[in-house]
């Protein structure tokens, strides 16, 4: 029963995004549309576990959500009428104070259309009452459902509105999680490491801005896409990174952010399949995801790339990721972008049967390009590791000096020093790395083990072969964007 309920909830959540996208266009108001979809969701959660999921859940939800929207408008009209009984001043103030309030009927809703919809719903109800079994039988003939193409456009509109450059990056992420993934403010707060109250405030302000400042609900034109796509891709990529490599402390949320990010990446790629950037994002995510089964061992410990059991890597995902990467590269006439380069690095690792077979010179080259296109401390550290793996440990240590010091920086420096048998210094670096990360950081126990090993070597200065290199990228996507708020 619970499992069935979960399946129903999942269907509703995923379909909900499409319905929301369409409803926002119809009613012209994000808040109203969200409320209506929310109510329709509750209705479905009440009905479906009992009646079973209808053959066309989206049609069911669309019809219900539209009906709920009309109900809400009716309620609001009744409320507004009561308020008009008060003095005109109060009414004026209310409007002034709440310019982006949920209801601006004149602008936000074409009443005529609402009434048409009502007729459609009435007809639909009559048909159902007569014994027509599935709602879509009656409705697909009517005007209430949109074509697939229209729905695709609606989704794109929603994506580009949520990721509009005039909204701050964390707001884009929060809006995407709310409207595109259907997560609750509490879940989003868990993901963004903030409070539910702060998340709700952020979402309310974002909706107010969309309405008051008139962020248009439309898909950018072809020439505008190069300017607008990076913001969308960054949202998806940072979602994946947040789910994949939690940077600060243990994750306490029940959401598989990686799955959400991949779903959005698949969606964007489907909607804009001829655009190289979304294709590269999907390739990168799938290639990174392919290694996920090997990232953590049975006891929950992080396994670094060199120690991973490569037979656990998902070959299907790798094949698809590489094909998408090639497709993306074929479609772009410019220099490779950051997603293509990161995907290429992941593909290079996926291509070889073992860590020792890695073509580090190629990886160094790709990191150099990545640092030209999109420099970041994470990409610089990746570059340093790759240089060290080609055997040039001195060069790597020198390069490290120019990079900001983080826990990972100290951990990498420790490994490089150990390569040169400077074990005491390596232990000091690992101590620093452990000091500046919370005790429940996923890499913490791995680093403690390395510290113990190097301490042992430091105390037993027999000519020891260098320990197996173990300072490789923990599987984070290299230029991980932090979800800082």
């Amino acid at each position, binding site marked *: 029963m619970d499992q069935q309920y979960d399946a129903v909830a999942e269907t509703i959540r995923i379909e909900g995004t499409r319905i929301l996208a369409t409803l926002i266009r119809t009613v012209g108001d994000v808040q109203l549309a969200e409320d209506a979809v929310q109510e329709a969701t509750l209705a479905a959660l009440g009905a479906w576990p009992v009646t079973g999921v209808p053959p066309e859940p989206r049609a069911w939800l669309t019809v219900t959500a539209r009906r709920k929207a009309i109900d809400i408008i009716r309620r609001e009209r009744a409320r507004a009428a009561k308020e008009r009984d008060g003095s005109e001043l109060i009414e004026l103030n209310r*409007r*002034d104070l709440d*310019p982006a309030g949920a209801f601006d009927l*004149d602008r936000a809703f074409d009443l005529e259309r609402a009434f048409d919809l009502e007729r459609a719903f009435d007809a639909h109800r009559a048909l159902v009452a007569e014994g027509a079994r599935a709602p879509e039988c009656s409705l697909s003939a009517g005007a209430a459902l949109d074509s697939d193409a229209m729905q695709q456009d609606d989704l794109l509109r929603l994506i580009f509105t949520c990721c*509009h450059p*005039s909204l701050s990056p964390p707001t884009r992420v929060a809006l995407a999680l709310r409207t595109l993934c259907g997560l609750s403010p509490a879940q989003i707060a868990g993901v963004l490491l903030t409070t539910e109250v702060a998340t709700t405030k952020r979402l309310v302000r974002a909706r107010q801005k969309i309405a*008051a*400042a*008139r*962020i*248009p609900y439309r898909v950018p034109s072809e020439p505008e896409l190069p300017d607008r796509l990076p913001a969308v891709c960054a949202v998806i990529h940072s979602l994946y990174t947040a789910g994949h490599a939690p940077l600060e402390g243990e994750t306490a949320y029940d959401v598989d952010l990686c799955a959400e990010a991949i779903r959005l990446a698949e969606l964007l790629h489907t909607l804009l399949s001829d655009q190289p950037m979304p294709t590269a994002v999907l390739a990168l995510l799938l290639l990174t995801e392919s290694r996920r089964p090997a990232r953590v061992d049975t006891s929950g410990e992080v396994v670094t790339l060199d120690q991973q059991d490569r037979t656990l890597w998902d070959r299907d995902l790798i094949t698809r990721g590489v094909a998408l990467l090639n497709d993306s590269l074929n479609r772009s006439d410019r220099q490779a972008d950051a997603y293509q380069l990161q995907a290429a690095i992941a593909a290079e690792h996926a291509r070889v049967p073992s860590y020792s077979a890695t073509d580090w010179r190629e990886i160094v080259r790709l990191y150099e390009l990545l640092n030209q296109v999109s420099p970041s401390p994470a990409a610089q550290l990746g570059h340093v590791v790759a240089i060290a793996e080609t055997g040039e440990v001195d060069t790597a240590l020198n390069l490290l000096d120019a990079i900001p010091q983080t826990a990972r920086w100290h951990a990498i420096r420790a490994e490089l020093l150990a390569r040169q048998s400077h074990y005491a210094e390596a232990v000091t670096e690992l101590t620093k790395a452990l000091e500046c990360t919370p005790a429940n950081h996923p890499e913490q126990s791995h680093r403690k083990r390395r510290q113990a090993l190097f301490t042992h070597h430091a105390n037993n200065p027999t000519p020891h072969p260098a320990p197996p290199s173990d300072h490789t990228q923990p599987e984070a996507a290299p230029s991980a964007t932090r979800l800082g708020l």
Partner: protein
Amino acid sequence: MPQYLALTYTADVDWWAPEQAEELAEYRKFGVEYAEKVKASAVLHPTATATVVRVEGARGGPIVTTDGPYAETKEALTGYYLIEAEDLEEAIKIAAEIPAAWGGAVEVRPVILAK
């Protein structure tokens, strides 16, 4: 048609100073080019000429004035344009043509229109 107030934040200059003439001409050029979209505009004297006014307690209370700008910042409010635009994207496109956008910053705020 929705309206936006585009507030220009730039170095706190005296626009009448001879060395500003060239820049001021750039602003005039913008004003002429976007005459149809600009409903009102003003250039402000430097913040040194500003007076901050407060009334103590409630309305009718003693008037307290303070000399100088409300807040000392590197970029000061130096003028504004009231522009008409279809939506935020059009408003941003217009604001990006105001010289302050590259010499400082332009803040675009939607205006609440009386019904």
